[in-house]
């Protein structure tokens, strides 16, 4: 097949999506003829893959039109366009679909409107609430409009979780038959230049420090467990609007010895902490942009995950099988599960092994490519 991958991000950009596209193209080109059309001023090459770049260093309208024409030209003999995100690459892809009558598969990899609104500090809403009732600028609302338009005109949409599929369906009214779940493959494991030595009773919580992440409850739980496990340690990595409030709680409870705020951490440290710690408490109960990627990373690193009870959690975690689901608001329940994990190595090992099995079966490059190839070969929407 002749496949075009249309993307707004590509290495040397350091976003997760950039690395995904590079790895994907390198794998797809073993069986298919692959062309990448990317918004990029410079680009890393991939042997066997044609790369067309449209410089971002030109006015918005100019680069949009150039991208559109490049996509139109490249798609002359193409079988399918696999487009990443629904705005800057998505809109041109939908226009090209109209002229070329070829299927456009939209990978709804990121919620661009929410991401941008969060970066610009226009909102501290959760992604779900933001999409349902966005408190933002007219520019962001226009991005939401485009997301909806492109989503409804794509031949098919792929998302990385059932929860995202339901959200897209309810907020943008995309028919559920048009949405296919294709779980993301794990990011490459980080190779560190030194050994990782496990630290007993060390818990990590990584993510944005936002109101809906139940971090105060995790702090109170550590407070209650410190008698039983005097060496307990909670490392909180990330930044967010709740940071000062959380630090104050830790100070008030005199827990500075037990709870450490790491702030932003590097990719390597993110991996390192998973490798050395005892337990990872997933900080979100909502459909965050990285869900379920952060859990997959923990599966990959071999660290048990505790996650808040939710429909989304059920999609990936079976309680006491490959992780723990708890009501994070219930400190006693959280405390009980942490104690299980700290005391029972057999249980811990069972959870790690089962998580690894799921990782290989559901969240691997093999399964990701298989689903994608099935979509491509079905000629959906042609």
């Amino acid at each position, binding site marked *: 097949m002749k496949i075009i991958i249309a993307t707004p991000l590509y290495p*040397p950009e350091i976003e997760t999506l950039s690395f995904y596209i590079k790895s994907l193209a390198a794998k797809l080109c073993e069986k298919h003829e692959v062309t990448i059309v990317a918004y990029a001023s410079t680009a*890393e090459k991939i042997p066997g893959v044609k790369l067309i770049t449209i410089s971002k260093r030109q006015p918005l309208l100019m*680069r949009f039109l150039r991208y559109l024409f490049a996509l139109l030209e490249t798609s002359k003999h193409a079988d399918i366009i696999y487009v990443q995100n629904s705005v800057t690459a998505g809109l041109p892809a939908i226009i090209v679909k109209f002229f070329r009558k070829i299927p456009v598969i939209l990978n709804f990899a990121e919620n661009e409107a929410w991401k941008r609104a969060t970066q610009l500090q226009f909102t501290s809403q959760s992604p779900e609430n933001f999409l349902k009732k966005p408190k933002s600028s007219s520019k962001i609302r226009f991005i939401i409009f485009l997301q909806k338009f492109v989503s409804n005109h794509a031949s098919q949409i792929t998302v990385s979780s059932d929860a995202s599929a339901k959200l897209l369906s309810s907020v943008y009214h995309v028919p559920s038959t048009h949405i296919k779940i294709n779980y993301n493959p794990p990011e490459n494991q980080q190779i560190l230049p*030194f050994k990782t030595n496990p630290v007993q009773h060390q818990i990590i919580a990584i993510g944005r420090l936002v109101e809906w992440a139940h971090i105060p409850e995790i702090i109170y739980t550590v407070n209650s467990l410190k008698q039983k496990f005097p060496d307990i340690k909670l490392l909180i990595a990330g930044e967010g609007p709740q940071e000062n409030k959380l630090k104050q709680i830790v100070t008030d409870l005199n827990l500075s010895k037990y709870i450490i705020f790491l702030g*932003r951490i590097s990719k390597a440290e993110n991996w390192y902490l998973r490798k050395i710690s005892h337990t990872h408490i997933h900080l979100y109960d909502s459909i965050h942009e990285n869900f379920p990627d952060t859990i997959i990373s923990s599966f990959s690193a071999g660290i048990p995950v505790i996650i808040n009870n939710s429909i989304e959690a059920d999609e990936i975690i079976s309680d006491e099988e490959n992780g723990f689901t708890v009501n994070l608001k219930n400190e006693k329940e959280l405390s009980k599960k942490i104690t299980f994990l700290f005391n029972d190595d057999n249980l811990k090992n069972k959870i790690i092994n089962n998580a690894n099995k799921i990782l290989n079966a559901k969240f691997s490059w093999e399964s990701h490519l298989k689903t994608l190839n099935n979509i491509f070969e079905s000629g959906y929407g042609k």
Partner: protein
Amino acid sequence: MENNTKKLWKTYYKTELTKIIPLLDNLGFSLEEEQVHVIGERYIINNQKLILTGRRVKNGQRVIIKISNNEKFIKEIEHERKCREILKKIDFSSHVFFSPQEILFTKKQGFIIFVTAFIEQENTFLERPFEEQFFLALKALEVQEGVHATTYKHASVIKKIFGIWNAEKYFEIFNKYKKEIESKSPENKKTKIIFLKAQEFIRTNFETINLYSGFLVHWDFVPHNIRIDKRNIYLLDHSSMRFGNKHESWARFINFMTLYNPKLEKALIDYIKDNRSQEETLSLQLMRVFRLTELIKYYVSTLENLSGNVLTLNKKRIEFWSNALEAVLDNKFVRQEIIDDYKNIRDSLRSEDEKQRQKNLH
């Protein structure tokens, strides 16, 4: 000769202090007794700008005072402040830069005065455990990689303030350095061969340099230009920022570690080799060559004004960093005995003042 340059610096410092102290007093600041940024080998740089430590009288807060009445350095301080301001405004930066809080920026009696908070730190960078050094370095470098001047809007915002360097610019500047080094130390045949090799290496790899250009870089990214407070990294010198090849800040930092922590140098290089693309490894090597050439050029340019121990020391420095350049070009590390020999000689030649200045610096 040494005495002359040093004398001139001392005279400059003393004269300026007589004007500065009452000025600062009026503004509510006092100077600390010990001023580490003006002693030791500081005179070699001979900038008409003073970096002083002081306190805010009303609350005793420790501060850093940058002050000058020289036109060139007034512009430099203004530029640094502009860089700080624009960094705060850049909406495409997905990462927050920590900068010491600005307390005062003013012009009085021909002086420009820029006062910022002094950032206390529990330990210097090199005193921290190895893993912590590694992860702090990566964090700081990744923050810079997160700021990419990708779009038209971005480029137009930053071009005027920071400047944008591409392969052609790096090569042009490299050639200037090479020319200066050769004109001021023409007798060194070995160095000549190394620089020819370096020149060819950069000339034939423009594509790789440009591939990673357009990123925010701190071209003097070394431990003494950052301070760490509760794992937050504060950039102290904002005038050394530009948009260029993203490995330029990596290169400066790793080159520094060649001397101060070779284990960390190796760990960072291995990390790039094992986790990034081959092009990134090559790009880093190219930037290391560029930065080392600049360092050698700097020491060569000081020779004519020096004599005595400092002259001998700077000649040794040129020799050491030339060895480092040769090693980088050959994809090797400087041998430990070369590092140890150099350190021994350096320590025997350094003045007591300079040893004092170096304390708690890195």
